[in-house]
């Protein structure tokens, strides 16, 4: 299995300086992505999804954030230890990123073509003409009609869906091994979202890339992902294959989440809901971070935080909850999952 691992995030910890103190936005996150696999990363707003992805790409410059622990192994080498110049060589080449906001993620004063050519010339060493051809090719690949003309347009002349396709083309242009897509469709309309998701699925299959798909939309997860990691308050609370996750969610948060989403033609009178709010990172409860909102909270939950452990002895199924650990193992010490 290890040989198959494209990216391995191991105990990643990222802190932000804020008002004198610091908050830990990402706290010991573990997960891995295999080659050709789509890993979904879900969780509510502010739980640390974006920070995780930015930490992997080491794009925290100009923010008060800093990786303060853990390792990010990409094809075996630890990115957190690389020199900035070496990291630059990986960014955009082996590992590319698609951002949430197609409206603001493109530079408004540079032509589309120019922005696309940049990584191509940098990483593939093409001359201007060849880079341009390559850019047009890639644009066609992502289903943009009239690509030859479009390269001379400015971002504002494009619709949101088109821009997101340009972002995808940009990410694809140097044939990366891994694409990190941070909420690539959140800003788009449903019909356009359907187009983009369809496109991404196709491209992934054609190019056999690994993908980290960040979203808070369980629907998108269900349709796109092979495996899922659920985050809550900077931690991974559950990891499962997509099928398991929806059929047998383990963590109470995941359960609540799945149940509070209204589903088409479901016809319930009342929705389930998780009471309370996402905790503020600067004043986190001791013990399990979900405890204050958890319907099954126990005394232990308030004092000690459970580890992320394998469920039912399966290595691909993990949860961070005393309940599963106690229920399944009758209160015995549980086998701790370790990344290695």
């Amino acid at each position, binding site marked *: 299995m290890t040989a198959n691992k494209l990216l391995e995030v191991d105990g990643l910890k990222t802190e932000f300086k804020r008002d004198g103190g610091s908050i830990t936005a990402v706290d010991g996150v573990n997960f891995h992505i295999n080659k050709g696999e789509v890993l979904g990363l879900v969780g509510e707003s502010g739980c640390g999804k974006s920070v995780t992805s930015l930490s992997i790409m080491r794009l925290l410059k100009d923010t008060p954030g800093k990786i303060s622990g853990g390792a990010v192994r990409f094809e075996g080498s630890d990115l957190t230890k690389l020199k900035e110049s070496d990291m630059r060589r990986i960014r955009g080449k082996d590992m590319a990123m698609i951002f949430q906001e197609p409206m603001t*993620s493109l530079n408004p004063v540079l032509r589309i073509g120019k922005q696309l050519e940049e990584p191509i010339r940098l990483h593939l060493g093409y001359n201007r003409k060849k880079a341009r051809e390559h850019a047009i090719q890639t644009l066609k690949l992502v289903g943009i009609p009239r690509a030859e003309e479009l390269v001379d347009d400015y971002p504002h002349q494009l619709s949101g869906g088109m821009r997101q396709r340009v972002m995808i083309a940009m990410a694809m242009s140097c044939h990366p091994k891994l694409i990190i897509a941070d909420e690539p469709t959140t800003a788009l309309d449903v019909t356009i979202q359907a187009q983009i998701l369809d496109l991404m699925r196709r491209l992934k299959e054609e190019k056999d890339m690994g993908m980290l798909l960040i979203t808070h939309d369980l629907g998108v997860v269900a349709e796109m992902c092979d495996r899922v990691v659920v985050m809550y308050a900077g931690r991974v609370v559950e990891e499962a294959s997509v099928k398991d996750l929806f059929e047998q969610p383990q963590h109470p948060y995941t359960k609540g989440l799945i149940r509070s989403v209204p589903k088409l033609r479901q016809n319930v009178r009342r929705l389930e809901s998780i009471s309370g709010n996402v905790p503020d990172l600067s004043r986190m409860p001791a013990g399990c971070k979900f405890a204050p909102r958890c319907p099954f909270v126990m005394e232990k939950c308030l004092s000690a935080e459970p580890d992320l452990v394998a469920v039912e002895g399966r290595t691909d199924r993990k949860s961070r909850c005393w309940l599963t650990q106690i229920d399944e193992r009758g209160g015995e010490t549980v086998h701790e999952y370790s990344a290695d």
Partner: protein
Amino acid sequence: MGRYALQRLIGIVPLLFIVSVLVFMFIHLIPGDPARLIAGKEATLEEINQTRVLLGLDQPLWKQYLSYMKDMFQGDLGNSIRSGLPVTEMMKSRFLPTLWLTLLSMAWAVVIGVVIGIVSAVKRNKWPDYAGMLIAISGISIPGFWLGLVLIQIFSVQLGWFPTGGIDSWKSYVLPSLTLGAGIMSMIARFSRSSMLETMREDYIRTARAKGLMEFVVVGRHALRNSLIQVVTIAGLQFGFLLGGSVMVETVFSIPGLGRMLVDSISFRDYTVIQAELLLFAAEFILINLVVDLLYGVLNPKIRYADN
């Protein structure tokens, strides 16, 4: 773009008209009797009155205004009350020095200001930032005439590098434009720093970094141009300040420019000159802002291509 510029140009006319009325009222509100000032201190009452009639100042104000406007539409700005010289001619010779002075001041102020702004923003909260901002704030904290006199003491009298004034060669412009540009340099430095900081927080900067671009490419190609768009606007507004500042700098450095002429003509209530000059200032200011708007469009494709 051409049509837009034309439209804007036409739009200037009513504005200038308002300005002309305001200017006219304004200068006639200022107490003082040009006839008396011109006739000299030993003049008799009769002489003064004759002068007044000759200058048409005995007419009711609205008549004076109408005849002034009539002449102006025929391209005649009249003669200086004081010297009798044609105003157009006087302005012509005074225009270039002031133009050079303001342009040079603006040029160095923008270049240095932007450089300081960028360095400060990139090195935020490190010593270059503090140094840059100290320079910048000093620029607006020193009274212009004082800076000018000190520069003369140092660079003309002590070191002999530059002349104390005049308009004899490019060297003559060095100290005056340093003096005049200091304030604007500061404004621009501060402004470009904050707009640069703002730009550096934009999503597309992160995108640029995610492509693996070198930091100087990120700053130079992606951030700079976006923040310049805002700097241009500020710089345009500063021209008004320059025109005002030129009064002082031209006095200190004996530059025969419009500013000094204006002060002179105000002290002699040389109505025709004041009027013509204030109109010119207003037109200049409006034009510059038009240029700024056009430039804004050139720099900002969103506006340039708004017609789709």
